[in-house]
């Protein structure tokens, strides 16, 4: 089966890859590009563990063919921090203990970052509905939502007290 050549931008870097037609973007990220941060939880778009940002909006990379990435800008969890500097969402996840096993965390980080790119003042309800496509089985979502709301506060220039000590 002939492979497709794809040119794309991933986490700000121009990347080229070859993929088979049936390979999803998630397959390509994990198996061809060694970007294993995005996870496969369900292969059906129901768990959000594979969430990436494509041309500015969050998508399930398991529901996108690698070939569709041609010319598009993709951001994965590996591209959220800037070098050593964690994004406020990442920092607040750590402070709030918003992760236990950590498997769903990359998907949540990317989805939450996209929320805050669009809305710096989400309500609890808005946050929960935005993140409804990301399943977490460990935390019950409480600390995740608190972390996102706190990250929003930080990004608004406020200084919420940190639970971490």
């Amino acid at each position, binding site marked *: *089966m002939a492979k497709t050549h794809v040119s794309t931008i991933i986490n700000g870097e121009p990347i080229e890859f070859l993929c*088979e037609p*049936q390979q999803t973007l998630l397959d390509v990220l*994990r198996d061809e590009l*060694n*970007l*294993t*941060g995005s*996870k*496969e*939880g*369900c*292969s*059906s778009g*129901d*768990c959000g*563990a594979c969430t990436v940002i494509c041309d500015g909006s969050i998508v399930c990379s398991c529901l996108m063919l690698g070939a569709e990435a041609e010319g598009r800008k993709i951001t*994965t*969890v*590996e591209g*959220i*921090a800037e070098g050593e500097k*964690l994004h406020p969402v*990442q920092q607040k*996840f*750590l*402070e*709030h*203990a918003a*992760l*236990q*096993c*950590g*498997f*769903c*965390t*990359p998907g949540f*980080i990317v989805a939450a970052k996209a929320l805050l790119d669009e809305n710096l003042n989400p309500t*609890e*309800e808005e*946050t*929960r*509905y935005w993140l*409804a496509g*990301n*399943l*977490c*089985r*460990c*935390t*019950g*979502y*409480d*600390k*995740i*939502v*608190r972390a996102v709301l706190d990250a929003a506060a930080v990004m608004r220039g406020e200084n919420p007290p940190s*639970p*971490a*000590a």
Partner: protein
Amino acid sequence: MSYLEKDSLKIVGTRPIRPDGVDKVTGRANFGADMKMPGMLWGKIKRSPHAHARIVSINTDKAAALPGVKAVTTRADFPDIPPDKRSIGAMPHNLWDLSRNCMAKGKALYEGHAVAAVAATSPAIAEQALDLIEVEYEVLPHVMDVEAAMAPDAPLLHDDIFTAGVEPKPAKPSNVSKMVRFAKGDVEAGFGEAEIVIERRYTTKPVHQAYIEPHACVVSVAPDGQTTVWSSSQGQFMVRAYTSRIAGAEDNASIRAIPAEIGGGFGGKTIIYLEPIAYILSKKSGRPVKIVMSREEVFRATGPTSGAVVEVKMGAKKDGRITAAKAVLKYQSGAFPGSPVQQGCICGLAVYDLPNAEAIGYDVLSNRPKVAAYRAPGAPIGSFGIESCIDELARELGIDPLKMREINGAKDGTKAAHGPTWNNIGYMKTVEAAKAHPQLSVPLGPNQGRGIASGYWHNAGGESSAACHVNEDGTVTVTEGHPDIGGSRASMAMMVAEVLGIPFERVRPVVGDTTAIGFSASTGGSRVTFAGGMAVTQSAQKVVEELKKRAAIIWDISPEAVEWKDGKAFPAGANAGSFEPLDLAAIAAKAARTGGPISAEVQINAQGQAPGFTTHICDVEVDKETGHVKILRYTAIQDVGRAIHPSYVEGQMQGGVAQGVGWALSEEYIYDKDGRLENPGFLDYRVPVASDMPMIDTVLIEVPNPRHPFGARGCGEVPIIPPMAAVANAIADATGIRLRDLPMSPPRLRAALDEAEPLRAAAE
């Protein structure tokens, strides 16, 4: 040295950022499916489409001939396991059952049962190869329902299983593999004394642990048998032992089982499915083999917990004192024996002080995947029955549900129905805290209701090893053997840092593979902070003794004249001499001259684990037209002994609550008439999403367990026990409707509402 006084603690009880946290929020952490090895092949598994069938023949020739396929395996490659080799040490599983679960022998016992496997150079080729494997089945009648499986004429799964626990031993084989019974006093006399007796029947459906990470492993077997197993599991020593036994390696020293980060387990990864298959494929092909389950495979072929029938009879005086309680529990175990019915019998009643009690449990086979442990295995099901029934009894008597717990709850000195006498338990404190909690004062509006439920779990101790090393620069590495499911390695580092008196950041915890640390039993049973914590604490204490000895050598004084405080060695009193205190870095710098590397390794079989008790408060709102239930508020109050890292203790409680809410309202396995699973995915197997849950308030009660250096009790499993009854009791409070069958999904609630109010339904 005692660390039981909370005020004296500097690190334990605080909330530092976990040492593996940055890796996890940046995607650097490596889970089971994230490993690659050079030359790696992709393995895939062929599974039975039938719920019950004799495997007449398997022909793998065409699959083996497909270009790109490097190995094929069937049952023929798996050794039989003789009776004397079917258990290993204190590990709880029957290896013969597990072997036949990994790869079917003779019969496929459930839809999804593995019958063959291939390894190929790409996933696509492996998938193609599966289609080329020809399997001839003789389809047999199947049985899915627990009571149907108990009937004498039910289709039989195994002809060599006779009900254990029954005297005399039955002559005919049965799907009832075991009967257990616990009793205290005389229940019939107790019911005779009662002024009210109620009998109720509750049912639950199988639910899956639903960890977001599917099972995954990479196994590489070298020609001389040296083997690396990379997998996410709840126990790398279990992985090593079980892989070795099932695949016929029998050479554990040559197997290095490396624990990948694990994406959730909840008990479902305390056994293995893939590693022996990958081992055999790797051995046959001479290359590493990676096998990753799809979500569909996880649902079709890995253990959910039991579905069950729980029949409860309770008798009480009008003042609320229970005089007798009897429960009959029938749990499905799936294709092989081993449901958690025994725990179900024990735990529900253990919350109460019952003068007369009896619990009878049946472990029942059916053509479903073999059940695996799921967070407090057996207890949530039994407690759904017990906690609902107590609520029904309270309502009949007009007694407040919390008052009912006050009257009947277990206290220090209470003898539980299954034997032990409680000492130093915190149950009543959880009830008191519930009574005082502000949630009780929130007024309830129309169609809103409030439910209370309690729970108990015994927790576990067991075997753990730990090694504590002082590095040349005075930092410390502590290696332990427990996969970190929920943040435990942070707690390990905190305990070590506390003992050594050094900052948390100077201690690096490592979860070692089977070659790097001594034997450690699996992560589960709420044992890691208890047993693992005990081991790391003892190893750190030994290191302190060694550090004092080294300081004594440096100062040329007696070791008894050295104190250790705040991370430094001090001369003990003016008589010892006036020396500047020595910190770890100073002592480590002179390690070679004072005796060599500074380390301590500890191996224990931890005893003295203490039970956990909990009480939950749940507020719901019911949409009576659709039957939809919204959780408005939820509070979990639990006796945790000592919260080493309170954020992760809270997290365990909140996670358990969310799983319980899903179990209560929306999760179930749906099978068609052919025994095929209709909802093997997260679309129709409905776990709670973020918008389904409110914030979950947690109250941590600390009644320290003095058998643990810091007072810890296990805390991870107790919180999943009460939610189903808490929700059912809240629905009853809101609507007057009592639902006794899980899940309490909208169609069921709407139908029950209509049945209760037929005039209203007709008017619509």
